């Protein structure tokens, strides 16, 4: 049983969003992953990502990269700007934009290029995820 957390009560969330969360948990488990908790918030996406990540003490946030489709206001950029505007809870290194890692990303996330990026600071948007449609944000 996955713990689910809705901050303002499930009656205020939409059935679609609850279904989406359930489906995502199911997909992850089918892919061999284990989900420790699922969180549904009544906030703008960039707000909820920041808030949930901070509450959980998440060291890494993974999200889709809509910027690949050239959409303005992509979550990743908004999140990056929000994070920059906030005081860092701990000493932070430089924020690295994905393209700082020029080598083509592969399906192997254990790529040395990824680790090189990871070690450069406690904040990052890692280039390794771009070809897979993912953005990694370390905290």
């Amino acid at each position, binding site marked *: 049983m996955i713990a689910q957390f809705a901050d303002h009560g499930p009656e*205020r969330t939409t059935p*679609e969003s609850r279904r989406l969360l359930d489906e995502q948990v199911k997909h992850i488990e089918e892919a061999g992953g284990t989900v420790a908790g*699922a969180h549904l918030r009544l906030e703008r996406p960039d707000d909820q990502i920041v808030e949930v990540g901070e509450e959980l003490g998440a060291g*890494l946030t993974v999200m889709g*990269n809509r910027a690949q489709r050239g959409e303005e206001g992509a979550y990743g950029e908004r999140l990056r700007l929000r994070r920059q505007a906030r005081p860092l809870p701990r000493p932070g290194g430089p924020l690295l934009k994905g393209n700082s890692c020029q080598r083509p990303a592969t399906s192997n996330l254990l790529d040395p290029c990824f680790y090189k990026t990871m070690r450069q600071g406690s904040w990052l948007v890692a280039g390794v995820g771009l070809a897979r*449609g993912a953005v990694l944000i370390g905290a």
Partner: protein
Amino acid sequence: MTIFPTKILLATDGSREAELAARTAVDLATSHDSELRVSTSSLPCP
């Protein structure tokens, strides 16, 4: 030495990109034995 995060948050909206992000998160969490959490957002019901 590499210190990998012990808690990973997957932020998803069900999009194609988010599905790819989910695979990435699962790969990372399983290969590093990290805790994986999932979150999404919803506009309140009127």
